[in-house]
């Protein structure tokens, strides 16, 4: 009796686990039909908006589209792309390059694009990058910029006892403290690790003057909302992260390429900022609606 109950419980648990595994793992399942393009996205709102933009642009021109959005981290959706589960995903050039070539040193937009062509496996290709970038950016308050005459990262050298706040990895990564010293000759930076990816705690520390410089992703609405000054990076310390369509080689027909190139040609960082602001702001606009609005405003659908 007891054994039978135990077996039943074990079977139920096992079934639950295998069901959960199916749900969680988008790399399982069958590849889509040959004439359909399955658009995927990473699991954060901006990437979902971009995937919606790609999907709706393709659909408007008569391409059959399926969507599998919010897949998760790069490790997961690249694998899904390679085994044909999805065909197209909006990517960021610099991070995509370091995923396939961890030792890559290219930082300017053009160098990253060249290196990317070599680094990608045969079955994948990237199309034209957009001007839009979402990357680490160093920001100061308007008051700090005016008081110290700072407009670019190079100007930070003039500031003694500079206090910088960023995610903890900034302390060791090549674009972080080591890069500031090597590329711009800035030494003696007092570093504060704040683990919120340039979120509200980092912003508050900057506005309170506990730090002078904050690392905030370049498409974060708080930059414009608080009139922060994003410092120029003339030496390309921080690698380019242009939005770029990563597509499976089999599905990259001329028609598809033309449609996506037309999208990329119009997409700017300011657009991304505005889209994110509408998505995260008071109106909490849905990615699909935002994509439609943007495509319409640019005359793409």
């Amino acid at each position, binding site marked *: 009796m007891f054994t039978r109950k135990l077996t039943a419980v074990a079977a139920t648990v096992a079934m639950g686990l295998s069901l959960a595994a199916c749900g969680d793992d988008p790399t399982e399942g069958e590849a889509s039909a040959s004439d359909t393009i399955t658009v995927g996205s990473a699991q954060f709102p901006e990437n979902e908006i971009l995937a919606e933009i790609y999907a709706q642009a393709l659909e408007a021109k008569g391409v059959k589209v399926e969507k599998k959005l919010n897949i998760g981290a790069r490790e997961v959706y690249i694998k899904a792309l390679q085994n044909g589960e999805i065909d197209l995903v909006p990517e960021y050039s610099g991070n995509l390059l370091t995923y396939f070539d961890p030792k890559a040193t290219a930082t300017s937009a053009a160098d990253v694009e060249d290196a990317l062509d070599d680094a990608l496996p045969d079955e994948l290709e990237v199309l034209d990058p957009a001007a839009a970038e979402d990357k680490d950016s160093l920001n100061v308050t308007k008051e700090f910029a005016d008081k110290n005459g700072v407009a670019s990262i190079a100007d930070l050298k003039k500031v003694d006892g500079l206090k910088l*706040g960023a995610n903890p990895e900034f302390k*060791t990564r090549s674009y972080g403290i080591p890069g500031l010293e090597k590329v711009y000759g800035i030494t003696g930076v007092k570093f*504060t*690790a704040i683990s919120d990816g340039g979120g509200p705690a980092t912003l508050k520390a900057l506005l309170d003057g506990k730090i002078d410089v904050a690392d905030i992703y370049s498409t974060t609405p708080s930059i414009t909302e608080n009139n922060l000054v994003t410092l120029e990076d003339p030496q390309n310390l921080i690698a380019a992260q242009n939005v770029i369509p990563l597509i499976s080689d089999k599905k990259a027909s001329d028609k598809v390429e033309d449609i996506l190139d037309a999208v990329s040609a119009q997409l700017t960082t300011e657009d991304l900022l505005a889209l994110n602001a509408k998505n995260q702001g008071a109106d909490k606009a849905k990615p699909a609606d935002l994509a439609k609005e943007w495509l319409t405003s640019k005359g793409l659908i």
Partner: protein
Amino acid sequence: MSVVTDTVDWLTASEHWSGPDGIPHRVLEHVGYTAETIAIAGAVAIPLGLWIGHTGRLRSVAVALTGAMRALPTLGLLTLIALYLGIGLTPPLIALVVLAIPPLLAGAYAGVESVDPQTVDAARSMGFTEGQVLTRVEIPLGLPIIVGGIRSAVLQVVATATVAAYVGLGGLGRYLIDGQAISDYPQMAGGSVLVVVVALLLDALFAGLQALSSGRRPSLRSRAPSSP
């Protein structure tokens, strides 16, 4: 190489044992945050707990409130406070004090309540004032449980003080958070091992104090010679 040998390598590397990022400095910071938290929480909770135990007033309120406080997730609370107060020592201290108050308060009132009411009545009938009843009878007799409350609070705080690193402070949490940020798993595992070691050492210290405090119970001493 396995995680175990990598972690041992990380823990034994000489460069990890000096400087502001070194293990001795991080352990000191960590124990420092713990001590400050226990000092603040103790100053609030122990007198209050003794008063509740002695008078029996507000007991149900204290039980309900501390139960609710126990349910607060420390990291969530820390994030919330940090959004209002900014980064620095205050937000993690407040969050950890909230964590430490329930066991301290419960230890204090449970310690006083554990004293045999007949003993308390006897003290009163001998002419002890209420203050004397508390300080000469209830606290000495309830001391093992009161110290047990402190022990429990210390253990919880030392294990949770890693959250301080989340808002830019030091302590052993730095190894966990910095390690995770750069996928340095030996560093994370090494940091975890250090937290466990420090927690066990402090717990052993308080276990010793607890044993010592029960040895001092006057009731045992006074009863011992009279027993046949």
